[in-house]
């Protein structure tokens, strides 16, 4: 009798484990166990005609075999995954094919191996648009405006910029010789440049005279941004400015840890955002302790519709703690946090994991109409200032940037703290 009970018990355990294995998919994604699946397993419900995977695979093969317009199988697969992610209706949940994934990695790291120059297309060839401060290209004497005519002896005139860039790229420590034509110089100039790690300048400061107001432009929040920001800020604070403008216009965002660290200069161990995850749990990001700098002057943060994500956190937190006046136009309205999963074929999946709320509890999620046009969302500036486009408009240049001019005016009239 005891033996019989043991056998029944063992069978029950095995059945229970089988069921757990069967429902593991649902359990792992923390959702309700599918009753339909069990009903189908036991034969109570009919098998669906086609599973989603079979449906997808069938159409994939049909398009690949039948389309008159040629498309590479790998590309078609990646287009499919892009469409699958897009069907969720969240503009920030994206599938990135390998090249795009690689670009995103470079962008968020904020440094790369190269010579430290940006090239732009030109009918004659590749033209040097910018040379980064302190980069190998600058040390070797490359100048903006130079036209690249050959790389390592290979002719580069008239070639596509991307191909010229590919030729110049290489491993750290290796040499590349570039021949350039310089405007106003008759003979071509030969330069030998040693490739090295180049930090992309993402936070740059300057003093605006005669008003003696500090100006700090942050173009993105990369891994290397906090240290650049801190250095530039120290440099400006030492000069005892009458006010400070932090320019986040056009800044698409970046990494949350970078923002938290940078806000540490203003706020001591304060809440930055609280994130709400899919299972309802909460996570709070805070600024570091004992990192504040003395800033006895008023601060303006400039924003516009292209200020998104980390920019909105930065500006919104300073607004909530009444630490700065926000000027410009409403921001983009990205109120969610993503994680990037690198996939085995080199592509990656960027997925929204959580929604975030600013310290005041507000959610700034962007709302759009069916044509994708803005309805509401984003931060509302304390003082709305539109940008007046003139022929000579240049952002960051006093006198040629109407928003910056009004920010300076505001700081001149504001009383010091």
């Amino acid at each position, binding site marked *: 009798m005891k033996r019989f009970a043991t056998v029944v018990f063992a069978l029950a355990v095995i059945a229970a484990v089988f069921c757990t294995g069967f429902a593991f*998919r649902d359990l792992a994604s923390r959702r309700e166990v599918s009753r339909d699946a069990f009903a189908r397993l036991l034969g109570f419900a009919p098998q669906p005609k086609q599973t*989603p*995977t079979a449906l997808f*695979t069938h159409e994939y093969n049909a398009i690949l*075999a039948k389309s008159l317009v040629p498309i590479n199988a790998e590309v078609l697969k990646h287009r499919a995954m892009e469409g699958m992610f897009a*069907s969720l209706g969240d503009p920030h949940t994206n599938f990135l094919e390998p090249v795009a994934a690689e670009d995103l990695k470079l962008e968020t790291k904020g440094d790369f191996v190269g010579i430290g120059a940006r090239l732009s297309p030109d009918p004659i060839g590749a033209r040097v648009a910018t040379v980064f401060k302190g980069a190998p290209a600058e040390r070797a004497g490359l100048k903006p405006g130079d036209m690249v005519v050959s790389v390592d002896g290979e002719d580069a005139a008239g070639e596509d910029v991307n191909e010229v860039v590919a030729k110049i790229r290489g491993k750290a420590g290796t040499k590349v010789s570039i021949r350039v034509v310089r405007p106003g110089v008759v003979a071509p100039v030969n330069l030998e440049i040693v490739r090295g790690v180049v930090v992309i300048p993402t936070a740059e400061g300057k003093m605006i005279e005669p008003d003696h107001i500090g100006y700090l432009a942050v173009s993105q929040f990369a891994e290397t941004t906090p240290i650049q920001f801190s250095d530039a800020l120290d440099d400006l604070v030492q000069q005892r400015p009458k006010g400070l403008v932090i320019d986040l216009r056009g800044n698409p965002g970046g990494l949350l840890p970078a923002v938290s660290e940078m806000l540490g200069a203003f706020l001591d161990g304060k809440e930055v955002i609280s994130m709400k995850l899919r299972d309802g749990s909460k996570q709070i990001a805070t600024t570091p302790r004992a990192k504040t700098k003395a800033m006895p002057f008023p601060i303006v943060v400039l924003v516009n519709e292209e200020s998104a994500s980390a920019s909105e956190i930065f500006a919104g937190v300073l607004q909530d703690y009444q630490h700065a006046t926000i000027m410009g136009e409403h921001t983009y309205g990205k109120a969610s946090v993503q994680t990037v999963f690198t996939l*085995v074929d080199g592509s990656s999946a960027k997925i*929204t994991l959580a929604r975030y709320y600013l310290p005041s509890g507000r959610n700034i999620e962007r709302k759009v109409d069916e044509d994708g*046009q803005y309805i509401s969302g984003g931060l509302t500036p304390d003082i709305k200032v539109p940008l007046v486009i003139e022929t000579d408009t240049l952002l960051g240049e006093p006198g040629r940037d109407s928003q910056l001019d009004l920010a300076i005016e505001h700081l001149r009239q504001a009383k010091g703290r």
Partner: protein
Amino acid sequence: MNNPRRNVVPILGLLAVVAAFVAGNEARTRQDVGRSISTLQNLGVRSIIAAKDDVRPVGEAEFFFQLTLLLEREYVDPVNDETALANGAIRGMVNGLLEPESRFLDAEAFRAHEDALHGTVEGIGIETTLRYDAKTLEDARENLRKADPLLMLPDLIVTTVFPGSPAEAAGIRAGDRVIKLDGKWVLSYEDIKAIRAVRERAAQGKASTEEVTESRKEFQKRADDAKLAVKARDVLTTGLGKRHELSIVRTGKQLDFQVVTAKTPRPAIHKAPDGSVRLQFVSGAADALRAALDAGATVIDLRQSGIGDPREIVPALSAAAPTGQYGVLAAGMAGTPRPLTVGAGTERPPFRLIVDQTTEGAAEIFALALKKAGRATLTGKTASRPFYVETTKLPESKGYTLLTARWAEGAGK
């Protein structure tokens, strides 16, 4: 203690438990995927997530299934509708071809498309196409990142105005380019090129900087209130009883129209007072054509025909001409020629086909095939769009069209 059975039982038990779990999981995978994708991969969704230096290609079924799992597990909102994910993937593939006649159709657009192939047209009663900048399209198909995204905005062009439609009554014509719909601008590469041309002229000192600022401001105003051409296409070809304001450009001039959407009948055969017979390639076209020819029709009008239903081509040819080969269909990605053969044909005296720039799709294939075989004379020039466009139905009332072939004369006679 030394009884060997005592040691074996726990191990067997543990194995049985593990086996039960794996079997359960495998059963679910078979149910969800339709076939087995290695249980070990299914157990760990992380298998598709790269560890260090872990590089391998992934097959399409595994890719889809694994990413479904990943989204279900990680995405901020619950993901329950996997069929919607599959439809999204199909949308991505079809639209990723960057081919104007290959379109993913949502429920409403699909129903309107099916109705149009069965003799009733919705919307304002037109067919349209997207016209891309040729060079940019070539770049984009080679590598999407090579193409300038702004120059990827297509023109929205009217290709067919169905007889008796609200669009025809309003005076809209084939060839018109839609630039504005219900107060929103349909921007295209042409607008981008125009603003760049002004800048270019300014750089050469042939235009003032004020002109550049003006054109930039005007463009910004339009971009702030814009509608995508693909969306405008759906609006114009679906719905009943809705009033639309649209502006078009015809030979450089802007014209404004007000049109109310309505049902437009699109019969397979329509007899005109002058005795000519108008043919539309909708279902039943071949039977109706046979009846008309038997009744003595000698002139067939193939204008304003639309892309039509390609399944009617072969039956229509066999109603109109004897058994034989009628050119080829260059099909599939390789463009492999496949003979267009007609069995059980009908011997008839040659007749006349009226065609023009709006004769395209199934109707154009029909016309060119008969002309090549010397079975019909053509008055006019066709659109050079002899496209064979197939329709596929998907779950959730969606579907898509796909350009699968185009007609060619082929080798031989």
